[in-house]
């Protein structure tokens, strides 16, 4: 199934929750969806015959300046097709429903996106930092991040 067919079918089922399809060859095409319905859409994508996206390849957080974004790269083992979903949330209220219950691998990916970008995944059972120390402040991969001068009274070099 191509990304256009997937887009058409999702549009039929979810209407306004599916915002647009971005095509930009030679780069990847992606479907932009509303953040609040990402859980339902992912559930459909995993379970509906014909889609069966059982493999979450990657979940990345992005800083777009004003907004934050989460990008989902899905793959189907059975049909060997792919789809890219994107959600965009404002920086002052970056809440996205967690898909951890759909693909267990999202657990650590979401923790990483929370740790480095600061996206809050609602419904995640254990949303704590994963790569940085547990008491680190700030989100290092944001473009406006300022490195702290001291951490536990130790000077942070660089």
């Amino acid at each position: 199934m191509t990304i256009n067919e997937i887009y058409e079918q999702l549009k039929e089922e979810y209407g306004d929750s599916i915002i647009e399809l971005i095509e930009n060859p030679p780069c990847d095409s992606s479907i932009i969806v509303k953040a609040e319905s990402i859980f339902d859409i992912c559930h459909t994508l995993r379970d509906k015959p014909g889609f069966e996206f059982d493999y979450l390849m990657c979940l990345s957080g992005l800083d777009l300046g004003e907004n934050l974004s989460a990008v989902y790269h899905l793959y189907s083992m059975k049909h060997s097709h792919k789809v890219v979903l994107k959600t965009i949330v404002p920086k002052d209220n970056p809440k996205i429903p967690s898909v951890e219950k759909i693909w267990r691998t999202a657990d650590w990916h979401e923790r990483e996106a929370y740790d480095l970008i600061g996206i809050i995944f609602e419904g995640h059972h254990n949303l704590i930092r994963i790569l940085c120390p547990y008491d680190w402040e700030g989100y290092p991969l944001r473009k406006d991040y300022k490195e702290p001068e001291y951490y536990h009274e130790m000077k942070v070099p660089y």
Partner: protein
Amino acid sequence: MGEKKRIELDYSKIESDRMRLNVGPQHPSTHGVLRLEVELDGEIVTEVVPHIGYLHRCFEKHAEKMTYPQVIPYIDRMDYVTSMNNELPYVMAIEKMLGIEVPEKVQYIRVIMCELNRIASHQIAVATFGLDAGAFTPFLYFFRDREYILAIFEKASGARLLFNYFWIGGLAADVHPTFKEDVLAIVKQVRKTNKEIEDLLIYNKIFIERTANVGILPPDVAINYACSGPVLRGSGVKFDLRKNEPYSIYDRFDFDIPVGMGEVGTVGDCWDRNIVRMREMEQSCRIIEQAIEQMPNEGDVQEKLPKKIKPPKGDIYMRAENPKGDLGFYIVSNGTDKPERVKARGTSFVNLSVLPEISKGYMFADLILILGSIDIVLGEVDR
């Protein structure tokens, strides 16, 4: 002497205190700086909580500050035993964005280097897995052989471990004149050693007793956790990106995908994950032999190097089959010579996340084996 008193015990009513034990971060069996918080009931593992991040070197933050070619040395340092394979998906992604067709000779050298590095990585994996199980000799044999492979890399790139050899659109340097003969000699040596190791370790009864039926990972759980590489194939899922989604020139070679079949235990146990690695080494040898035969002698490996590297605006996700599984790079370009964002989907990072799921209910000594059978490199877990 008094009469022996018989004590009646109702075992169902015995309760034992759970103990929390800290393994690592400085522990030889955690294969790096990994800390496992383990809850034990006697000697039985009831819970495992991995704590990672001790080797976090801010790869993604660094990548945003550098030009595209400058990122490649950092990628080498992610999974530092498979640096050749790490570079491949990154350069392929940029080449796809720029629309560069890589010369034939470069493609063949890349494939040969990747497969040699796959053998080297699997040698470390099997060697340290044997070490975890208490077998020391295979470790020495494998490290002796690995040194021959590293010598080839050194002749080509100048470095033993961190190469910066694959460039966007080409290679850093051409291979030396006796490359083909050297590689074929290694293939012969690898096969000879693997035969020895099979006798010494793989089909050894003690080793089988130790690793069969331990750490069973069912295929549906493996897919749900997005495991890849030998961890996924050990569970009997026949999935290999080189076959299922051929990239580079892998569609020109004839090779098989070994999967775990539960020969001595259950499908998806530690022994299965290990035997998949052993058999993949043989398949890599087959690919190398075919590639050496087809490889053109003439050709400039740097003729397609772009003058300026400014990919168009957009994002791309490229993945390739690393020795440990799928390594993916999500690259966002903003039209300048520096990437907006480079996200690495670390293979070991994803594979390690399945550890708490598959280690519950086994002995503590088995936990070390299960961790060894996943084959993680902490450089890639923490990036």
